[in-house]
């Protein structure tokens, strides 16, 4: 909670600072404006909820929960359109736009074999396991990123900047697919899917980035930035796993207007 508040406080301070400086600029300087296309990817650190319907497979001398030896990953890629307006001193930029994000998470076995056991049904007489190789899940989100960029150095061919941003995203589509070890078990696809929850309908993330822009006069500006890190400030579940934070890369191309 403190971490989240700290992030929001820093974000607000940057905003107010940027707005303040923006307001103090002399009228004779002309503000730069850009419109651009962005694309990027992120790898998220995630953990597996303690599912009671997945059979544990931990080392005999190990410890922990039954899901410790499951492998999970959540990765995202996105494309978007953004506009940027800079302060007259050309040191701060405010960026916003629309972003389409595809999140792909999976759950599989991490050691010893290429499947895990999932409890399908259980009654007084019998227990039925299914062998699962992989559960793969996709979610599509539409989001609004809001970013503040600070360029401490004067314009040059390669210009360093730091950035803080937040993104508010809304789920528009999701799909889940189960890869069975025995293909004949496909008939249980829906039963397995129904054991998992739906992905989060909305989420909010904040991120910090460092980047370089390549400037040519009268030509598009190319920006390459490393997101280190991004963090979810709302609970975020892909439906399979819970994501915590991540790192990534983003490339965006801006045209002045």
């Amino acid at each position, binding site marked *: 909670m403190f971490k989240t508040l700290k992030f929001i406080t820093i974000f607000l301070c940057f905003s107010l600072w940027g707005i303040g400086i923006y307001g103090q600029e002399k009228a004779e300087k002309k503000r730069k404006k850009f419109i651009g296309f962005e694309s990027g990817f992120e790898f998220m*650190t995630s953990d597996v909820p303690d599912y009671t319907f997945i059979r544990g497979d931990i080392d005999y001398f190990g410890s922990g*929960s*039954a899901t410790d030896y499951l492998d999970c990953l959540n990765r995202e890629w996105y494309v978007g359109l953004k506009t940027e307006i800079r302060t007259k001193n050309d040191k701060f930029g405010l960026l916003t736009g629309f972003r389409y994000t595809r999140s792909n998470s999976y759950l599989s076995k991490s050691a010893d074999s290429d499947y895990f056991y999932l409890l399908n049904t259980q009654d007084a007489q*019998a*227990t039925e*396991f299914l062998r699962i190789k992989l559960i793969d899940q996709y979610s599509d989100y539409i989001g609004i990123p809001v970013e503040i960029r600070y360029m401490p150095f004067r314009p040059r061919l390669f210009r360093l900047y730091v950035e803080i941003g937040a993104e508010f995203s809304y789920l528009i589509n999701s799909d889940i697919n189960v890869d069975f070890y025995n293909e004949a078990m496909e008939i249980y696809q829906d039963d397995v899917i129904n054991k998992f929850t739906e992905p989060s309908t909305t989420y909010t993330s904040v991120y910090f980035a460092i980047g370089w822009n390549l400037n040519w006069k009268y030509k598009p500006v190319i920006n390459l930035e490393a997101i280190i890190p991004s963090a979810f400030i709302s609970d975020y579940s892909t439906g399979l796993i819970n994501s915590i934070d991540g790192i990534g890369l983003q490339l965006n191309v801006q045209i002045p207007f």
Partner: protein
Amino acid sequence: MKKIFHVLIIITIFSLSCEEEYDLEKSVLIYDKDYNDLPAYSEWGYNTFGAYYDRKVFISNNYEIPLKVISYDNSTTFIFKGEINNPADNSYNSYYNEEMSMKLSIENFKLETYNDLLLFNDTTIDLSHPDCSIVITIDNDIFETVIISGEFEFKKVQNLTVDNEPVEIIMSGLFDYQFLLNEEPISVSNGRFDIGIGDENFYKY
């Protein structure tokens, strides 16, 4: 920096794939949150058992078959095999661990196949019954016991199927008893087991 390291580990794991076979005979030890020297009670066929033997811990290990069920003549015998160790020295590789087995025999009861074990579902055996006997073996020393009191409860005995194919019988339950060993009373308490029985650990002759 820790977060970056975290992500790099995940990416590394992602790039690896394992193709080794895995089967349900493996033991999976998940410790009990309250009695943290013992395996947690489960009904998954984790092939573990454990109990306090006075203050020591009698527990399955990863080397011995945890339970053999033997149907012989007109009796049925359950042999739990593992090791006994001191909770203060909880290193399982310690040289102070000793091999231990507990042999529970029930006279006048015979099984034809391991599927007959389903008869034990939701059944409690009174160990003070004259048909029951327990023999303890610690490091090749065999001790006949005189049971004072106790119960062996099969909470759940169930068929396990994997991908719609029958695989084994899972026996899960609890046990507690007291007995005399060389005229000294001993308690076995908080015992629990969760073991799969199939062709590899059921014997009839």
